[in-house]
């Protein structure tokens, strides 16, 4: 069974700084990581490969240095890595990104066999959009399963899959036909450490590197800035919170009196809360 995992290399958001004058992101020196949400997708893909045999291909689009993330994925145990890189893709929004990735996925099918499952993380930590997965599914006419918490059943021969999908206020149990695009929910597994063999293999592995032409992507009007309907008009740092926390005076108060005061301040600021709590309390 062939499985593809789409990943993204992202800056470690904990270390992002914004230039105080130009309001641009200061990327220099910020370490890059595999988008943490994608690791849940990668681990899930490898588990099902281990169960049924086959290969896991990891795919990313990005600058040449995104190769680091692909090599890292190989050390975890992925079998093959494909880097889609071309200056024509620079500035892609989600629509242009899904166009390019769908093109590369079609090429992957041609070169390495048809994937029955394509995985992505539920979103990235830099863009946070959760749109590229559904975009790929639509472009490749794959059945789309987002926010998957668990794959309950997979029958590659019969072409069936059953999953639990996180929905609003509950979990949907969905069954559909392969091939599918799955976006994996966070916290549902833990990425393996990878073996020493994997580490050696990864260090020597040749990353398959394609530009637009290599990947068979010919319509460049749908790529990069040109192919992006959305336009970033302005980037700016959020205004710092003007005021610090309102401090409840604590001196000369017993704990009981302080608790009463705090409760009063909460209800004063969140007026709907008291009613909500009454209803909850009455329903007990």
């Amino acid at each position, binding site marked *: 069974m062939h499985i593809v995992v789409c990943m993204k290399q992202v800056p470690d958001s904990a270390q992002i700084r914004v230039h105080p004058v130009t309001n641009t992101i200061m990327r220099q020196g910020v370490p890059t990581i595999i988008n943490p949400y994608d690791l849940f997708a990668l681990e899930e893909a490898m588990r099902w490969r281990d169960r049924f045999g086959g290969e896991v291909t990891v795919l990313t689009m990005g600058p040449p240095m995104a190769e680091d993330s692909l090599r890292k994925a190989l050390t975890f145990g992925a079998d093959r890595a494909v880097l889609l890189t071309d200056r024509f893709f620079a500035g892609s929004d989600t*629509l242009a990104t899904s166009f390019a990735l769908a093109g590369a996925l079609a090429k992957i099918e041609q070169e390495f066999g048809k994937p029955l499952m394509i995985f992505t993380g539920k979103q990235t930590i*830099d863009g946070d959009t959760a749109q590229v997965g559904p*975009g790929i599914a639509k472009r490749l006419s794959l059945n789309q399963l987002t*926010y998957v918490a668990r794959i309950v059943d997979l029958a590659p021969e019969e072409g069936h899959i059953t999953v639990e999908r996180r929905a609003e206020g509950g979990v949907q149990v969905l069954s559909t036909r392969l091939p599918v695009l799955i976006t994996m929910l966070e916290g549902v597994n833990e990425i393996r450490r990878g073996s020493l063999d994997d580490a050696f293999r990864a260090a020597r592995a040749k990353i398959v590197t394609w530009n637009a032409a290599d990947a068979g992507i010919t319509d460049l009007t749908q790529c990069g800035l040109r192919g992006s309907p959305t336009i970033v008009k302005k980037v700016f740092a959020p205004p710092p919170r003007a005021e610090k*926390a309102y*401090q409840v005076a604590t001196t000369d108060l017993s704990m009981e009196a*302080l608790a009463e005061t705090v409760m009063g301040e909460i209800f004063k*600021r969140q007026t709907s809360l008291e009613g909500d709590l009454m209803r909850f*309390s009455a329903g007990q």
Partner: protein
Amino acid sequence: MTEAPKQAPAPAGRANTKKELPEHLKAYKHVWVVIECEHGAVHPVSFELLGEGRKLADKRGVELAGVIMGSDKDVIATVANDCFEYGADLVYTITDPALAHYRNEAYTKAMTDLVKTYQPEILLLGATTLGRDLAGSVATTLLTGLTADCTELAIDDEGSLAATRPTFGGSLLCTILTLNYRPQMATVRPRVLSMPTRQSGRRGRIVEHPLGLLEHDIVTKVLQFIADRESNKAQLAYADIVVAGGLGLRSAENFQLVKALAEVLGAEYGGSRPLVQKGWMTSDRQIGQTGKTIRPKLYIAAGISGAIQHRVGVEGADMIVAINTDPNAPIFDFAHLGIVADAIRLLPALTEAFRKHLSVNRLAG
């Protein structure tokens, strides 16, 4: 939406300059909101969007419409009236057994058909698991722009939707336009916008539309829906009230004080990352960058210092109450209400105060 802010100045002549809209897009008018209606209940984010949509429609001098998809015509009729009272001028309804549960395939077909037929200029959805699943598919089918998780929507001087959203984990904001494509699509997270005032008796028009799809042709089947209230799992991300503890609680035993307050408030409980490492609680209750992001109406942080990794997970809360013995703890920089006190002593007192208040008022009511 954009995966990352584009830094490079765009070459001249590309789509970031306002051109006259292509002829076939000029007919696109009006503001639409997708009404999320599952299991007979409307997701509050839909009404919040109607409130905001009303302002955008007034600014543009166009109408505001709700889109209701479902299987039960009585429910749809009720929800239509809700939409009118929250500001919609009209609703488009699609009633079909195949729409009983949310499924991407059927809902995408329904939405794209409606958009192509009635041509809205702005299409808003909630940034929920449903809204995000649907919006991506609809935008890709229509080949238009979509901006996710907006925190502010406005109409700019040229009449375009200016959608502002946080990016890079909230360290930056960006304002995004979709100039030469229609509709301009955006999603907004629940509770980012305020709930509009309901205008009792306000009415509007209903436009019915067929689905044009048979159950037989829909590949994906919903086998079951397991409601959260029937399961035992931590639902931090979706909780209205969250009480959490940090190392300031000093022991696993004292962490029970957090649970006790949570119980009285009908809240979920959680904690900062060190608590998982110490084994005081399970990792599904970890709040912060590597754990859960929460957006409750009320968040009470007891003995949590408020490092940046914790901050990004809780900043979306409507109200943050911080209890810490250290007056210089970073949590007081982003909390709304701060109490410099020992959480171990204040938590039980708070639990008792709420318990008393709620039981007294219950008897009175």
